[in-house]
């Protein structure tokens, strides 16, 4: 671990100013990922700007049209919030499937969305285009059982591991951002990027931009999140799926659905083709399994990761069936 400067901001304006003046800087919320990566020498900010005392970031508001989640809200607080329990069970499900109770007590929603993609070699000392651009990819010819099966490039197949973003994408969420050029809002679908030839860049935020809030449109859709993993806590997904859907009140066929894969791709991976295919079909097991197969149709089996394609299929099927069992 190298020495770095720690600053605390008490307003958003101050945080942005510090970020501009003290670059290269990183915003610090829960620190559950940032400090980890700094200890490994993967992230090397010179200044760390603590945004935990900025009041606007810790709000949680439910209106008729949307749930607005301050980016500084803790994972555990959001999972336990009445608004979430009652209206967005998939958010709670995804949050509780992530990390451990101790980490959830610290980690913020904004930080959670921006967690780096994962690859065994990224955190080691082996060649890695993501850690040292141009140094090569150790996973390509190596142990790739945990790598992305969708959205990879020849430079990188690190996988986006977040459970929350997967669920939020199935809710069509958006994020509010504040930066040197002012405030803007973008669809969550546009926040994460595939590695392409710049694997060091996981997201589309501009330098100095800070996520201030997440907006989740109100919904009456049924919802479920299924996560398959090596152990039942403190483990990233081998495969996960978030599903929201509505059924036709008379025919019980699928009217509308969103299907998102987690832990399988280089970013949260919505599969619209499957959503189109599901339209008008009955929610029965054979349909759910076929939807799962369709969702993974373009997946790459690599050297050791074929099993995750199968697990992805099962995760989609399970999430669809469980969502269907819910009361509207």
């Amino acid at each position, binding site marked *: *671990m*190298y020495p770095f400067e720690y600053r605390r901001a008490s307003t958003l304006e101050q945080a942005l100013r510090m970020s501009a003046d003290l670059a290269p800087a990183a915003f610090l919320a829960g620190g559950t990922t940032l400090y980890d990566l700094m200890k490994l020498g993967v992230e090397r900010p010179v200044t760390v700007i603590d945004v935990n005392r900025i009041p606007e970031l810790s709000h949680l508001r439910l209106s008729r049209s949307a749930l607005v989640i301050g980016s500084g809200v803790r994972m555990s607080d959001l999972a336990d919030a009445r608004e979430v329990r009652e209206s967005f069970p998939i958010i709670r499900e995804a949050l509780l499937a992530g990390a451990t109770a101790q980490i959830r007590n610290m980690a913020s929603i904004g930080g959670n969305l921006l967690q780096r993609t994962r690859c*065994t070699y990224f955190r080691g000392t082996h060649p890695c285009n993501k850690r040292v651009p141009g140094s090569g990819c150790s996973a390509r010819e*190596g142990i790739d059982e945990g790598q992305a099966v969708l959205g990879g490039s020849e430079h990188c197949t690190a996988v986006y591991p977040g459970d929350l973003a997967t669920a939020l994408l199935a809710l069509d969420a958006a994020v509010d951002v504040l930066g040197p050029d002012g405030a803007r809002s973008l669809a969550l679908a546009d926040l994460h990027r595939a590695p392409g030839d710049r694997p060091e860049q996981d997201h589309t935020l501009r330098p100095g931009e800070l996520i201030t809030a997440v907006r989740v449109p109100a919904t009456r859709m049924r919802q479920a999140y299924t996560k*398959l993993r090596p152990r039942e*806590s403190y483990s990233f997904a*081998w495969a996960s799926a978030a599903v929201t859907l509505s059924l036709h009140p008379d025919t019980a066929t699928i009217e509308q659905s969103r299907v998102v894969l987690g832990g399988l791709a280089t970013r949260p991976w919505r599969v619209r083709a499957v959503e189109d295919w599901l339209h008008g079909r009955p929610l029965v*097991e054979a349909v759910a399994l076929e939807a799962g197969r369709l969702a993974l149709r373009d997946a790459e089996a690599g050297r050791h990761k074929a099993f995750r394609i199968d697990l992805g299929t099962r995760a989609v099927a399970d999430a669809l069936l469980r969502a269907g069992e819910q009361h509207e």
Partner: protein
Amino acid sequence: MSDVLRVDAREKVTGKARYGADRTPEGLLHAAFATATIARGRIVEVDTAESEALAGVVSVTTRFGEDELGPPSFVMGGGYGTQSLQPLRGDRIAHRGQPIALVLAENPVVANHAAELITATYEPEAHASHLDADQAETLLQREAIPIPFADDLTFGDAETDMAAAQTVVDATYEHPAQNATPLELLSAVVQWHEDRLLIHEGTQNAGALRNGLARQLNLDPQQIEVRSRYLGGAFGQRNAQHPYLAPLVLAARRAGRPVKLVLTRQQTFHQASFRPQTRHRITLGADATGRMTAAVHEIDQQTSRHDLFPGGYAKVTSRLYGIPSYRSRQRLVRNDIQTPGYVRAPFEQPGVWAFESAVDELAARVGADPVAFRLANDTSHDPVSGLPFSSRHLGECLRRGAQAFGWEQRPLAPGDWTDDEGNRIGWGVAVGAYPANVTPARARVRVEPDGTVLVETDGHEMGQGLTSAVTSLVTRELGIPAEQVRVRLGDTRVGAQPLTAGSWGTASTLPAVQAALEQLKAGESGAEAGNGLPTALADRAANGLVAAAGPVYGEFAAFSFIAHFVEVRLERVTGRIRVPRVLSVADCGRVANRVTAASQVRGGVVWGLGAALREHLVTDPRLGGFLNASLEEYPISVNADICAIDVDFVDRPDPLLNSSGVKGLGEVAMVGVAPAVTNAIWHATGQRLRKLPITIADLPAGGRRPPSGPSTGGSRPTG
């Protein structure tokens, strides 16, 4: 008198218990290692300039003189060390992660940062990191280590009897390398007082640290004091002197200040011993009546390039049943790794997993119920020595367990049992055994002026509850409350402190304490006694060498036994493997302390479940070392993976082994859990999976659809 609870529980949960690295003597310096980034080769140059320039760095050492840092010795080669490779003493790199420089600094942050700044150039060489690697070298163990301890076991005529057998199972089982991952990181605080050396380190073997350091650094053992009051988990990983200790002591002497080292988790994975990868070929034969007539157990096991870590798999698989003909063949496969070693049930976990899997396959092949088949092949005599077992209640473990588990509800055929939700159900059984060894121990007891009874004895408190077991014994013998008993152990000031391992701790220490208590009851105010082992063994132990008697004694052979019953459920859509309940019935002689004993068994079961379903070290054969060297990525089980574990004991004193009637428990607890799981998975699916760990990836999803009408699925058993 009611059972004594865990006497150190309050200290531990309130954070009062002080572990080795909790010591912070005045003037303390902090140490950190830079480590090799190749798997095998030679160091050309180590660049320490940037590191040495850092403010707060006191010293950076890349090489100690061969005269000041003597050669290390391997604990299994008549020495004291976890391996015979001493880093910082030459230019050879034997494995990825080997230390190449030692930094001392004023605080741990600077020490670690300085270590990160050290780079090296190497001449790399081709290396081997697994059993089938090109560069691996395979040796026949009995030729490589020509001593009886390492010899193959042979009795009867396995080849002839196998040829005559009615039914034969011949299968190969793959067990991965695994790590013990004790929560407490490897660490030590070393401090010189003039020419006296004080070591604080959580170790199972304070005697080896004392004598090993003395030999390597040319000191008198009497100059060295080692204290190991608590261990935050050991499981064999702290059973000898680690290669970091001698350099640390030398650096502290040069600096004239005490030094603390805490390895990082990555380093603990790469410098400490681990459970080696093994492959087991099991051949079993049965006659027309379902009696097993012949068994062959062939093993390939990883060892390091620089040490021969002897496998002892046959010692237990030869004794699980009364099979008249048996042959083992043990090979060692040299890889470029740190020397592997003992991890809870070191040979018995992998060996019995393979053997009990094959037994289950054989039972199915002859159409027998797996419990009945095992009972039919039980024995009262040790087939190896021909002697009677001192006690063997394995049959009762099986019968009692079957009864409590509801075994009679189990359908005989596999792959045909589902619950109301369509999840597949499987029930499996397996047995385990573990040798009852004993090591020399002495104990002193004294009544203090305030009425407290002070017990000073050999043995280490690894969390297994030795302190509580001693306290239980004293309260029972003297009729005084636990609060009036004080126990000191793991400290070379009060004893020689030979190795505590192999489940012999309680069975070795209690008889010594008991003998001393007898003297006390006879009217002495203070007394000292040994546990009655021969002088030759006691002398070895007093010099910090491994000295164990058993499991074959003059008139009998002594083993602990256990039977495990496991239920698995495989979720219909996801295929997720769940283990809703386990029942274990152990024969460990008299139960010394019911609270800590039950906890020991649960811990063994938890680990067995992890060994079967999750744990394996991942190696990239191009790179060597371990890729998943963190608690985050090495998947030990978490609470959410574990459901009901019921524990029962036969609790009958062993009449022959020792005066306390106790046999070991900690290791046998884990033996047989993994095969009970895999046998249950077979029962649920009809698939024999012969490679651990078995995960969701190995099993196709989809049990039977849930019944549309009234439930016809398997009853939800209660247990």
